[in-house]
C-alpha cells in the first residue's frame, strides 16, 4: 500500500522525493535508463507519464516531451509494457500520470486492471475531477490502487476534504497556479497554504510544480512529506544527457 510505504519511508527520511518522466521520451530505452539513474540516486517514488496528444495541464517542457514521444511512436501498449519492465526491475512505487482519454479509450476498467497487473500502485489524472471519476474511482478501489488528487492554492477547505475522501496514497499539492515547469516563489504564503492542506487530510502531502534545487527542497522540508521534481529533470536530460540525471538528483537529496 502506497500510503504505508510513504509513512514507513518518512520514518527514515524527513523529505521524500518523487520524480517524473514521460514514457517514450525521447525513446523507451532512454526512459528505462533514466528510471535506473533516478532509483540509484535515491528517489523514493516515481510518476510515469503516458503521453497524450492534448496535455492541457502541462507546461512547455512536458508538453514537448509528450508530443515528441508520440511522434517517436509511443503507444499506450508500449507504455504499459515498459512500465511493467520498470516495476519488475525497480523496487520503489510507480504511479501513472496521464490524461483521462488514455484510460477512456482503452476502457477505464480494463486500463485500471492492467495497471494493477503490471504493478503500478496509483495514478494521477489531472483532467479527471472526482465528479467525473466515478467509474475510475470504483475500479481503483476494486484493485486497491491509489487515486491521487490535487490540491491547489485556490482549493477551498471543504473541497480539500472532499478530494481527500476520494484519494489514497497521498495528496498532490501544487505550489502555485499555472502549469508544470514554471518557477515558484517559495514563500511564507506557501507555508500557510501547506498548513491548510495538512489540516484537511490525513494523507501524506506531495508538493510539486517548480521544484528544482536543494534550496527548494530545504524549504519544503517540514511542510510536506514528498517533494516532486518534474520538468527540471527533463531539462537536465535535454541539456546534459541521460547520464547527468543521477548527479542532478543527488544534488537535491544530498
Amino acid at each position, binding site marked *: 500500500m502506497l500510503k504505508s510505504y510513504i509513512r514507513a519511508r518518512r520514518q527514515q527520511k524527513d523529505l521524500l522525493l518523487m520524480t517524473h518522466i514521460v514514457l517514450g521520451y525521447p525513446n523507451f530505452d532512454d526512459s528505462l535508463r533514466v528510471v535506473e539513474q533516478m532509483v540509484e540516486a535515491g528517489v523514493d517514488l516515481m510518476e510515469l507519464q503516458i503521453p497524450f496528444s*492534448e496535455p492541457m495541464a502541462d507546461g512547455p517542457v512536458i508538453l514537448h516531451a509528450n508530443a515528441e514521444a508520440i511522434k517517436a511512436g509511443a503507444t499506450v501498449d508500449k507504455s504499459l509494457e515498459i512500465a511493467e519492465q520498470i516495476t519488475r526491475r525497480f523496487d520503489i512505487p510507480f504511479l501513472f500520470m496521464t490524461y483521462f*482519454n*488514455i484510460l477512456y*479509450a482503452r476502457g477505464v476498467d480494463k486500463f485500471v486492471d492492467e495497471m494493477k497487473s503490471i504493478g503500478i500502485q496509483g495514478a494521477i489524472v489531472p*483532467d479527471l*475531477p472526482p465528479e467525473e471519476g466515478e467509474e475510475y474511482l470504483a475500479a481503483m478501489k476494486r484493485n486497491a490502487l491509489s487515486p491521487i488528487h490535487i490540491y491547489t492554492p485556490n*482549493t477551498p477547505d471543504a473541497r480539500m476534504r472532499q478530494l481527500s475522501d476520494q484519494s489514497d496514497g497521498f495528496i498532490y499539492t501544487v505550489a502555485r*497556479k499555472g502549469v508544470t515547469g514554471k518557477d515558484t516563489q517559495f514563500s511564507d504564503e506557501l507555508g500557510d497554504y501547506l498548513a491548510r492542506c495538512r489540516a484537511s487530510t490525513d494523507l501524506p502531502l506531495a508538493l510539486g510544480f517548480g521544484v528544482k534545487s536543494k534550496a527548494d527542497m530545504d524549504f519544503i522540508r517540514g511542510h510536506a512529506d514528498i517533494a516532486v521534481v518534474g520538468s527540471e529533470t527533463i531539462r537536465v536530460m535535454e541539456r546534459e544527457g541521460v547520464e547527468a540525471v543521477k548527479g542532478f538528483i543527488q544534488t537535491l537529496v544530498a
Partner: protein
Amino acid sequence: MKYSGYHGRFGGAFIPEILVPTFDELEAAYLEAKADPAFWQEYEQLMSTYSCRATPITYAENLTKYFGGAQIYIKREDLNHTGAHKANNVMGQGLLTKRMGKKRVIAETGAGQHGVATATMAAKFGFDCTIYMGAVDVARQRPNVFWMEQMGATVVAVEDGSATLKDAINEAFRDWVTNMDDTHYVLGTACGPYPFPDMVSWLQSIIGKEAREQMLERTGQLPSRCYACVGGGSNAMGLFGGFFEDESVQLVGVEAGGHGRGIGQHAVRLAYDDATVGVAQGYKTYFLQNTDGQMQETHSVSAGLDYVGVSPILAALHESKRVRFEAATDAEVVEAMQLTVRKEGLIPALETSHGFAQAFKEAPEMSKDEIILINQSGRADKDIFTVADAIDDPKWKEFIIRKAEEYKRA
C-alpha cells in the same frame, strides 16, 4: 458546479482541479445572467447598437429559381460587426466578464475570426487581451493577426502539437490555470467543459430566436429545413436553438468533408464513422482520434471547421436524431461559394459555404412550397488569401508576387 453539464452521454467538465473554483464562478455568473431578464436586454441592446442585430433574412431569389425547388432564405450573420456570428458569443461573454469583475480576456482562434471578434470586444470593453493561435494559422491568416494586433491584443503563436486550433485551446487553458483570478477565457464555440457549450449556445440562440420570428413574419410559415455548418457547433446551435420545439423543422448540421472519407482527410465527427467518443479539451464528445485516444490530424479547406471535436450538445442531438448531420467536401464547398457569390452577390465564408453546399444538394428535390433557411455564419472577404488559394486564382498570385517585389525593394 450546480449542474454536471451532460447532454445524454456527452459534455461534462473534465477540468484541472485548479480551475474548479473558476468554473464554479463562471457557472454561477452564467446561471444568474440567464435567469436575469436584464442581462438579455443589455445583450440585445449592445448587439443592436454595436453590431447590427437583428441581422436580416435575405430571400435568395436567384438561387431559388436556379435550383427550382424549395425557397431559399438566408440568415445574415455575415453582417455582424467583424463579419461573423462569433461576435454574438464574444460580446455576450464580454458582458459576463464585466459582471465577474475581470479585467483580462484570453481566447483561442483557428481561422482568426474568433480572435478578431474577441480582440474587438476587448478594445470596446477596455480589457487586456491575449489571443492564442496555432503557428500554422498565424502564418496563413496574417490579415486577422494584423487586425488583432491593431486592436491592441497580444497574439501568441502556438508552436506545439499540430500548431493549429486544438493546440491553441490547450495553450489558452494553460494561461487560464495561471491567471484565472483576473482573466476570463472566452471560448469561441459550443465546446469545452461545461458551462461553455451551454453558455455559448445560449448566447448564440439570439440567431434562431430572431430567425424564427422573422420567417413567420416574412413568409407566414416555418422553414422545412434549417442548415448550418458545424465546426465546434456554435452557429448551428445558435440557429437551431430557435427551432428545437418545432418538430416539423428538420435541422441539418454540415461538417467539413475535406477530401472525403478516411481519418486525416476531413473534419467530420458525426456524419461519418471515423470519429469515436472520447474526452479531451475538458469535455466528452466524438473526437477524431486513434484507438489509443490520441487526437489525429484533420483537414478542411476552411480553417474554422478544421477541429477534432464537436459540441457535446450536437453529439447528443445526433444520437437523439433531432439533428441530421451531413458532410460537404472541399470541392463542393468552393463551388457552392462561387455560385452564391455570382447568383446573389453574397460572399459566404468557406466555413459557412458548407451549409450552402448541403442545402443546394437538397433544395432541388424539395417542393416549391417548402422553405429552407441557411445560416450565413460569416463573410469570406476577410479570408481572401484562403479563398484565392482555394480557387487557385493566377491573377491573385501575380499580385502577391509583385507586391512582395515592392516590399523587397523598399
